[in-house]
């Protein structure tokens, strides 16, 4: 009987133009989204290529210049001399730290348009290293991308609701509900069979379209972890879909008219997918306002002035703090570069409390988000999909800390040479520390994604429970 109802539901869906319209629409938006994602990924890949090429070309030129000078040539100027380790660390050999694209990157743009996926590492302070941005029209950043994750998080629930808003109310309004229930089947079994028929159709369709989108977006399914990530991507989508199916069933279980159901579901979608996330963002920003960066710049300027006034007195304290950087023998406190880095370090130390306040406020905001996100399956799904595509906040945060570590390494490599006034040579160019990204580990990502999926599933189950109990009081007539 269950299967017969399902088969009948499929016939109904197939005969109804809505399903075909929805299928064509969903296929069109998925492929459009896939092509957008493919374009963005290719662009980023090309940018990384440009940076790598620029860096190796620069290193080659520096090597040639060093060999020319070693052969008796003179440097172009005092400020353009690759024998000076400070200039090498600042510009000649400054290396890029790149965040590699994950295999599913074309499916979610996530934070990758806003947060840098590369930093140029010099001997500058950390604040300076991290302040750079990619060029982008701010209006583009504001609007966000039409990517596959957008289709999944926002449009796909609407497809589910458009097909299911009159699951029972439609039957009731056309008079078939009472007739059907005259057969040996209970209302809850009937409703279950109908919703199951929808689940099979929509998830089957989505699985096929998602695979097509991944292929169209140029995802290399042979890459390590790509296929399992895509499977998880679909898994999150499926669980997220179950939530909306359950919601449609629950709303139908109250026995209202189709138009009322449609309005109620639209309101629920609006609340869960748009209002709660943006209200949470606003609450977080109000509870933990991040001070304007303007304040930070001022603090750096003031600290910088005071530190340069103290100048040479800073050396003693500096080497007490950084014994590993101290060269053997005397340091020339009059040396421009030695002085500069010591002053900069003092500035970083002075503004550390302010930097800490910034980071504490950002962490505070993020903690509000972490708590409130359980209110919205859309937020959970979006974060999980970004995590699987390697474009989530957490991965960029991890990248930043990796870059910070590398920047320290870079400084530790060059500063003793600066203080010692070592003459930099072509051989030394081959011994530079290079950046390679160590990923945060599959376990961390699986934990976050699994946790989010579980929470969505749990809310779906709760809705189903509520729907079952409401169905017992379903008003068959009136």
């Amino acid at each position, binding site marked *: 009987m269950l299967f017969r109802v399902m088969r009948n539901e499929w016939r109904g869906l197939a005969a109804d133009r809505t399903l075909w319209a929805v299928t064509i629409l969903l296929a069109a938006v998925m492929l459009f989204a896939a092509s957008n994602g493919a374009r963005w990924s290719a662009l980023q890949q090309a940018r990384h290529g440009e940076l790598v090429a620029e860096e190796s070309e620069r290193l080659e030129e520096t090597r040639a210049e060093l060999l020319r000078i070693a052969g008796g040539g003179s440097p172009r100027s005092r400020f353009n001399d690759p024998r000076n380790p400070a200039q090498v660390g600042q510009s000649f050999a400054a290396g890029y730290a790149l965040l590699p694209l994950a295999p599913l990157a074309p499916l979610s743009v996530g934070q990758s348009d*806003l947060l840098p996926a590369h930093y140029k590492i010099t001997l500058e302070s950390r604040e300076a290293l991290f302040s750079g941005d990619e060029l982008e029209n*701010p209006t583009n*950043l504001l609007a966000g991308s039409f990517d596959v994750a957008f289709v999944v998080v*926002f449009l796909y629930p609407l497809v589910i609701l458009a097909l299911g808003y009159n699951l029972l109310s439609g039957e009731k309004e056309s008079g078939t509900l009472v007739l059907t229930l005259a057969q040996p089947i209970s209302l809850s079994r009937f409703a279950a069979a109908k919703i199951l028929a929808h689940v099979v159709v929509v998830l089957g369709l989505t699985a096929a379209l998602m695979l097509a989108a991944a292929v169209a977006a140029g995802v290399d399914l042979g890459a390590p972890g790509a296929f399992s990530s895509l499977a998880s991507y679909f898994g999150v989508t499926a669980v997220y879909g179950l939530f909306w199916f359950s919601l449609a069933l629950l709303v139908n279980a109250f026995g209202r008219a189709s138009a009322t159901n*449609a309005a109620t579901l639209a309101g629920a979608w609006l609340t869960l997918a748009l209002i709660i996330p*943006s209200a949470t963002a606003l609450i977080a*920003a109000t509870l933990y306002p991040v001070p304007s*960066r303007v304040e930070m*710049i*001022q603090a750096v300027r003031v600290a910088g002035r005071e530190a340069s006034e103290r100048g040479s007195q800073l050396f003693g304290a500096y080497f007490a703090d950084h014994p590993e950087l101290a060269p053997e023998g005397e340091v020339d406190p009059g040396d421009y570069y030695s002085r500069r880095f010591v002053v900069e370090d003092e500035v970083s130390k002075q503004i550390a409390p302010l930097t800490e306040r910034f980071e504490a406020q950002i962490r505070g905001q993020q903690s509000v988000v972490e708590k409130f996100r359980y209110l919205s399956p859309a937020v959970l799904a979006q974060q999980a999909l970004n995590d699987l595509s390697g474009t989530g906040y957490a991965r960029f945060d991890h990248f930043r800390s990796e870059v910070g570590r590398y920047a320290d390494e870079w400084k530790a490599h060059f500063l003793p040479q600066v203080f010692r006034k070592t003459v930099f040579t072509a051989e030394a160019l081959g011994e530079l520390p290079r950046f390679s990204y160590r990923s945060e580990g599959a376990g961390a990502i699986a934990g976050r994604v699994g946790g989010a999926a579980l929470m969505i599933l749990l809310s779906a189950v709760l809705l189903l429970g509520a729907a079952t109990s409401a169905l017992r009081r379903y008003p068959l007539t009136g």
Partner: protein
Amino acid sequence: MVMRIARKELLEMTRDGRFRVAGGVVLLLLLTALGLGWSRHADVTAAHETAVAQEREIWEAQGEKSPHSASHYGVYAFKPTGRLAFFDTGTEAYTGVTVWLESHKQNQFLYRPARDGNTLQRFGELTAATVLQLLMPLLIILLAFSAFAGERESGTLRQVLSLGVRRRDLAIGKALGVAGALALLLVPAVLLGAAALTAATADSESGGLMRTLLLAGAYLLYLGAFVGVTLAVSARAPSARFALVGLLGFWVFVCLAAPRAATDLAKAYYPTPSAQEFAAALADEKEAGIDGVDYEDFLEARKQELLAEYGVDDVEALPINYGGWRFEVSEEYGNQFFDLHYSRLWDQFEAQDRFRQRVGFAAPLLAVRSLSMSLAGSDFAHFRWFAEQAEQYRRRLVAFLNNDMRDNAGAAAFSYRQDRRLWRQAPVFAYDAPDALWALSGQSEAVAALVLWPVLSAFLAWGAAARLKP
């Protein structure tokens, strides 16, 4: 008759629980967004004012050094936030807040506030503007989808028409009823917003009042378009259910899909260069020069002019400091390339924005969003206006320092020192905000789309009402 219909519609809506709940939520969100937007805006403005004053102090207290060193020390310019930005924050979270002005270089703006925000910002910011742009249309749909279709289903439409009520009176009455219900929500919000604004616009140099009025007009047109479309669909739809689902689909297209789709298309047609490409192209062209005239040639030509002007044949014989003069020539040479490349980049961004405006003919949200950001002073064009003024100021400041060296350093080169007295005389950056007409001038397509939509939708509603089937 029209008024009686309108009154009946309004009464029905205000008694309806749906309207009370949905309207209450929208009003609450609108007031919250206005209030929090206002307080955040006040904080940002205060921080900005402190910073501007402090920056000048820092500049003046930089100590004794050569004017050229001072030009390397530079100053920071801080982008002010427009007075109406509390209503529509527009792109403010995504534009850098400050730029470092130093000699030789036009720098990029730093510190996009969004990078310091939380991840949920990307779901869209809750501002008064987004409530009006996204939620109000939905409320209109909810209020009016059953205007005709519902009455047809319940049979009252047949009765009313049989009484000889003119179909078009019915349409106008229903439109007025919806408008009245909306006014119940909008009037308190508008009064509050206006009060906040009057408090803010003590001086009206950037045309605050004009901008506010134009904003109100833009939103009236936008919401009017939704009233028209909703009534037209309700009059034509076979059932209330069909009208609602169709209208919700329309809303999803206009408010959700179109802005993102337009952005991806804009980026595909008018690609943004990478920072690396931009910097490399700038450096390459600066190296190669314009029409084969590189820096050496440029300097040589200017040097000959200079020598001729003073009637000497060697720079040693000049009564001015040649080094200071040459610094300024190198600025002039470099500025040509900054002008060229930055305007190319920014024109590209404006082409993207203009493309979005044109999509406004298909999806009015894009038109109202563009116009609203522009009138609130938080769009890219206003950012560019500021950035260009900051750049002009950079050039004035650097020229002031170079010219001091040229005129007063004599034969001394780097040993020439200046102090607080000169730093104090240096030009001050006074930002001149553009007026409302300037803001409007870049929005012709958005304005056209925004006028066309309500006219077209009223026409459709009118036509549908005339052929109303009982």
